[in-house]
């Protein structure tokens, strides 16, 4: 297996090209001087920001800012909750035997194997029915009416993140040495102290990995958010989708470029953390 076929290298390079060409085009066009953004007409140089004109325009775009704010809030809250309950569940599944354990495990696989749209529709149908019933029976009118919004999105994001958190934390728990916990208890620590000072620090890297995955999944989600969102709860992916049907200025590209850079930064940070804990 030592000879390197030039055809293999070529095809590998071609696939990498295929993967990255769109991204390169995207970033490039965020410097486009043409507003209609159909053809690249040279690097823009307008206003105080010069070549970064479109990036600066973003800063003044309230819709973008609100969408960004929503996206981050949703991601943060859903990550916190899903990591918390997911870690506890992973501990339960890895360490304990309890009734309905097999059923629970099967249930946790469901979000992973069904298409996102099915889950999204399900939640939409569910909340529509509940809100309709509650609004009618509690006599809510106007602004007080229950409707889809930030809360429904957050709650749905938690639902699809938890199985992934559990998977990752379980993998980490798999090699965990139980005698460490027994040693702590032997030395006088009760269950809570043992968990806080021995178990948690040792599973922390796994928990953080899970949290990071939950955060990324939430940031990126489109389909489920699409069906569970409402006015005032627009996230960035939804916002971009909406724009695609209208005028696509290089502002969208600028947004995309920033997005890509932000994600790369996040990944970089997480790798540094991983390296630190190894």
């Amino acid at each position, binding site marked *: 297996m030592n000879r390197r076929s030039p055809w293999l290298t070529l095809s590998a390079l071609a696939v990498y090209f295929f993967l990255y060409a769109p991204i390169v085009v995207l970033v490039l066009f965020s410097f486009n001087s043409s507003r209609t953004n159909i053809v690249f007409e040279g690097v823009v140089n307008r206003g105080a920001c010069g070549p970064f004109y479109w990036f600066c325009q973003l800063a003044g775009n309230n819709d973008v800012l609100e969408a960004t704010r929503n996206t981050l809030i949703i991601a943060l809250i859903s990550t916190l909750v899903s990591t918390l309950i997911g870690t506890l569940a992973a501990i339960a599944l890895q360490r304990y035997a309890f009734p309905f354990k097999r059923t629970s495990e099967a249930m946790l696989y469901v979000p992973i194997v069904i298409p996102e749209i099915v889950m999204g529709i399900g939640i939409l149908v569910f909340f529509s029915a509940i809100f309709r019933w509650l609004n009618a029976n509690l006599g809510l009118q106007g602004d007080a009416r229950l409707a889809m919004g930030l809360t429904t999105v957050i709650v749905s994001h938690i639902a699809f993140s938890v199985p992934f958190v559990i998977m990752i934390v379980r993998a980490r728990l798999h090699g965990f*040495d139980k*005698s460490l916990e027994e*040693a*702590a208890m*032997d*030395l*006088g*620590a*009760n269950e809570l102290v043992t968990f806080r000072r021995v178990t948690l620090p*040792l599973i922390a890297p796994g928990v953080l990995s899970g949290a990071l995955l939950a955060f990324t999944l939430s940031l990126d989600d489109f389909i489920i958010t699409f069906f569970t969102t409402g006015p005032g709860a627009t996230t960035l992916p939804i916002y971009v989708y909406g724009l695609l049907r209208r005028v696509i200025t290089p502002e969208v590209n600028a947004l995309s470029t920033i997005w890509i850079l932000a994600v790369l930064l996040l990944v970089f940070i997480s790798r540094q953390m991983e390296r630190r804990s190894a």
Partner: protein
Amino acid sequence: MADYAVELRNVSKRFPGPSGELVTAVKQVNMQIGDGEFFSMLGPSGCGKTTSLRMIAGFEHPTEGEVYIHGRAMGTTPSFQRPVNTVFQSYALFPHMTIGENVAFGLQMDRVPKADIAQRVKDALSMVRLPGYENRKPKQLSGGQQQRVALARALVKRPEVLLLDEPLGALDLKLRKEMQMELKRLQREVGITFIYVTHDQEEALTMSDRIAVMSHGVTLQVGNANEIYERPNCKFVADFIGETSFLAGKVQSQHGEFCTVDLPSGLQVIAEAQRTLATGTAVSVAVRPEKMQLGAQNGDENQFTGRVSNVVYIGTDTQYTVQLPGEQRVRVRAQNSAPGSRPLVDEGAEVTISFPAQAARVLTE
């Protein structure tokens, strides 16, 4: 009633097994361990020794019976409320803490003032001959060093009893022997009760004041090394401790503490019996190889002629396997005391072996 350091009264433990049925790991065990004793629980894996230890530590609770520590019934008291500490087989040092933090952990649980903790940690590490190791991490230490840290961590709390679960299992032979000496010395120095679990009978014999030999969840015999070795009370103990040759036969008659046993080949053996046995009882006569001699000896009640089937030179001794009539086989060990020893007899030669009645024990099971 004098307070034993640890007492187990009619303790049984049952677990659900792999296919759901109940497995009895410990069956009606009674043990009394005195203050300052070095007490070992010895037996093959699965005999219940580790389970018994864990019930003393509080990691398991007896299904029946009661564990007493200095006269106090432990009931379902969890391990962190018991005045005992454990040294684990895998050392169980916290990998994310330094050596100093590991040793200090138990003291922090006891809410010892910070200044005192530092000093006590220092003293504990000196006691196990690892002074100045406070800032290192467990993974930087060798197996033997980790073992000593585990010891220090347990002893620094000044427990009433120290439990050791096969602590030397992972060490190589030379290190193990050194640590055996260390542990014995430490126990004398600290003066508290050590309860030691092992499957290595040589280890138990060298270190312990008393030994409990266990098999299949029951204690077969409790006594000091001499009692267990010289006067085993059943086949299992005779076979598990040291080497034994067995001669199976039936009781022909008994005079006081000596029995005459008929062997199937027609030969007769005279051996010591522990109790009165009815004529015709099926028994095994146990003899240690080193108690038998090659060549007739005046005064020995038992003398047999056989053929040497195997000669093995083991350095300090030579071991001869002798075939007796009736397809019975014994092993005889002779020390190679003369310089440049050659075997006393060669393979295939006819030889007489002899041993006194006191060297043989009649065992019913």
